[in-house]
């Protein structure tokens, strides 16, 4: 690999880190604007002026905001996310298992959704404008258009309540046997698959159709290649960049955007963890989770960029 490419990648990563820093400031500012402070949120209806003052002092809430920000940033850079204000637990430890759960669910949803979406997209292109294409597009669009909680409830109603094939609540825990774990995540993974399917499928279809207009595809057709081989050998490799982009976007969604599905299926992932702590104004946790989500989003986008560059000879060998 040539050095311009390495330089490009280094640039992307540096930009990503800068972006992360900017986001950390934004997250911090956002949590400051919320009404009420963490001491009030922890004590709730049982807050008395004395207990509020005690707790504020104990939590260091009397320092100015910028001092708290730099204090926290220093901790993050040394791998210390701090302790949760509301429960006193170490944030890094509690996030570890949560993040692992989220990644586990996202992984299996992606394993099903991505090949399925791309295959369906290829089939749709092969039979474009025919009834197969319309059926695939229609179904995929329908499943995406339904809100995810609706899909979740429908799945629960049939698979958990009526037929009792899969559990309706997906509580997983450490040391759970793999088979049970897979059974537990069957429904949420299905719901997620249905939600992200159409976006990737439609993008695959559009990208390949775009390429299908070009001269070399016509040449390939004239060579006598079968329709599938034309798509597989000539159209797909040239359409890969936009497809990778949309796949990465949906991967990011599977990790950072699954709050609703987690709540419906009672899945102990990052989303639920974040929501709990937002309502308690637990600033260190909200910041840590926000930062992790931002990091996931940014790194997936960097990967998409790099993959697009690597997949495209014109970008790989700039003149």
């Amino acid at each position, binding site marked *: 690999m040539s050095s311009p490419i390495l330089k490009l990648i280094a640039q992307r990563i540096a930009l990503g880190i800068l972006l992360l820093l900017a986001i950390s400031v934004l997250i911090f500012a956002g949590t400051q604007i*919320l*009404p*009420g402070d963490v001491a*009030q*949120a922890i*004590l*709730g*209806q*049982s*807050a*008395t*002026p*004395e*207990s509020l003052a*005690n*707790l504020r002092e104990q939590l260091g809430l009397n320092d100015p905001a910028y001092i708290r920000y730099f204090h926290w940033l220093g901790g993050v850079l040394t791998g210390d996310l701090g302790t*949760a204000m*509301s*429960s*006193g*637990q170490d944030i890094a430890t*509690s996030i570890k298992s949560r993040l692992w759960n989220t990644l586990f669910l996202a992984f299996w949803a992606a394993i099903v959704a991505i090949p399925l979406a791309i295959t369906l997209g290829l089939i749709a292109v092969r039979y474009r404008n025919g009834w197969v294409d319309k059926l695939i597009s229609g179904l995929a669009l329908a499943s995406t258009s339904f809100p995810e909680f609706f899909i979740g*409830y429908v799945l*629960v*109603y049939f698979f*958990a*309540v009526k037929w*009792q094939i899969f*559990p*309706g*609540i997906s*509580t997983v*825990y450490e040391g759970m046997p793999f088979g049970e774990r897979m059974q537990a995540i069957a429904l949420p993974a299905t719901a997620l698959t249905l939600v992200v399917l159409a976006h990737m499928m439609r993008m695959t279809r559009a990208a390949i159709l775009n390429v299908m207009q070009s001269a070399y595809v016509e040449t390939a057709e004239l060579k006598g290649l079968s329709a599938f081989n034309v798509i597989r050998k000539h159209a797909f490799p040239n359409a890969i960049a936009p497809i990778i982009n949309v796949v990465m976007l949906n991967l990011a969604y599977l990790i950072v955007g699954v709050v609703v599905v987690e*709540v*419906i*299926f*009672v899945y*102990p992932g990052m989303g*639920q*963890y974040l929501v*709990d*702590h937002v*309502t*308690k104004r*637990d600033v260190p946790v909200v910041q840590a989770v926000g930062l992790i989500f931002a990091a996931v989003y940014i790194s997936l986008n960097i990967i998409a960029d790099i993959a697009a560059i690597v997949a495209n000879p014109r970008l790989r060998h700039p003149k």
Partner: protein
Amino acid sequence: MSNELEFLSRRVASGKLSRRDFLGRAAALGIAAPFANALLSSAARAAGPVKGGTLKAGLVGGESTNSLDPALMMTQVPFALGKCWGEMIVELSPEGKLENRIAEDIGSSKDAKTWTLKIRDGVEFHNGKTVTAEDVAATLERHSDEKSKSGALGYMKGIDTIKASGKEVVLTLKEANADLPYLLSDYHLIVQPNGGKDKPDAGISAGPYVVKTNEPGVRHGGERFANYWQGDKMGHADQIEVIVINDATARTAALQGGQVNMINRVEPKIVDLIKRVPGVTIRNHAGPGHYVFIMHCNTAPFDNNDLRMALKLAIDREEMLNKVLRGYGSLGNDFPINASYPLFTEIEQRKYDPDKAKFHYKKSGHDGTVLLRTSDVAFPGAVDASQLFQQSAAKAGIKIELKREPGDGYWNEVWNKQPFCASYWGGRSTQDQMYSTAYLSTADWNDTRFKRPDFDKMVLAARAELDEAKRKQMYHDMAVMVRDEGGLILPMFNQFIDATGAKVDGWVDDPHQELMNGYALAKCWLQA
């Protein structure tokens, strides 16, 4: 006929006949299903609890921020879990009587200022140590510490000194209080080794279950404590598990799908649907919780008692009870006490009376609109209830302007700050606690700003009165005063609505809190 039924119900209890067959036979004998069910459960109780199995509850009210420290318990999951692993000094029985636990006997001096707790012999902590008077004293000390952030701190402030000597703990109070044993039944006061001073969130006490898994906001599990001191009464299932399910639909689905045996907080609007599900039993019963609209008695225009009275008369309680709670509650009468409290006296029910409301409104001289702040978090259905209030008041010529406040920050920015808003109270275990928490001039939570020196005197006098009849009369007078002169509009008391799945037995309605005052997992069992 009744002999045959009884025979059949005993056969079900001993596992020789299925529940469904029994209900079928009962129907054939012309017995309505609810009666047959009641007969069945009484037979099951008579046959005695069944040991074994895993009892699972799917509960709302758990967050990943929960801790096992009893001082910090606030929501339903830590509360219900605490009743499984924790042991109390004294507890309230479902009938409202005091039930001694770690205290074998509680006695007081004649002036109700010095109290002596005699500690029971042979109660063992999960760590193998014996519960001593020192442990009990240390527990009370920790919860009295200003820095402890304990939810029981408010009551504990009234205790002056705590001393352990031999098998006794002696408490002296700053002021006489005949209700002290009731205060000690507060769910925060779980007895811990050395009062939990060493490690407050260790989850070690002397309750029927030992904490085995603790994943806050996800699930909690316990295993029966072999040396529990009253194993015949509690701890029937081998294991218990609490799964946190905050979503109402997911919770009901989990019960229907058989993944959990019991759930809490069934929404009133779906109760009738859930009732039809085979195997599911709705467990609803009255409690002290109430939904309210509160006016600050010291802020214009609510500093005028005629205006307050006009608003109290302009609310249609029956309609609100039927539409917001779907009948799962009871009418309120503008004072915070109902039959679930000891020493309760019935007072004439206030009714919707637009004409009288009009009269008082005119007399108050107020003109223009009255601003009512409301939010979904005030109580379930609070926004609907506020709109009903607006309409019923309009018929009396009173214009109420509604302002919908964001749920986020409602308890910091609106409640106890704004002069007129919707709110709720969970209730307390005694009248004194309720009045002391929210109606004393000096109370932090006096959310109606009801500041009346004469009322304060009555509270203190009733607190020190050991003669029950006199005390009852005093509470009656206090109730009348709050009802007719206070800033509280109390249209309805809500009910606890829990539900259990097939095979759950041993349920006893308890008016103090939901899930049998939190003991459902510890006291229920699974039929064989």
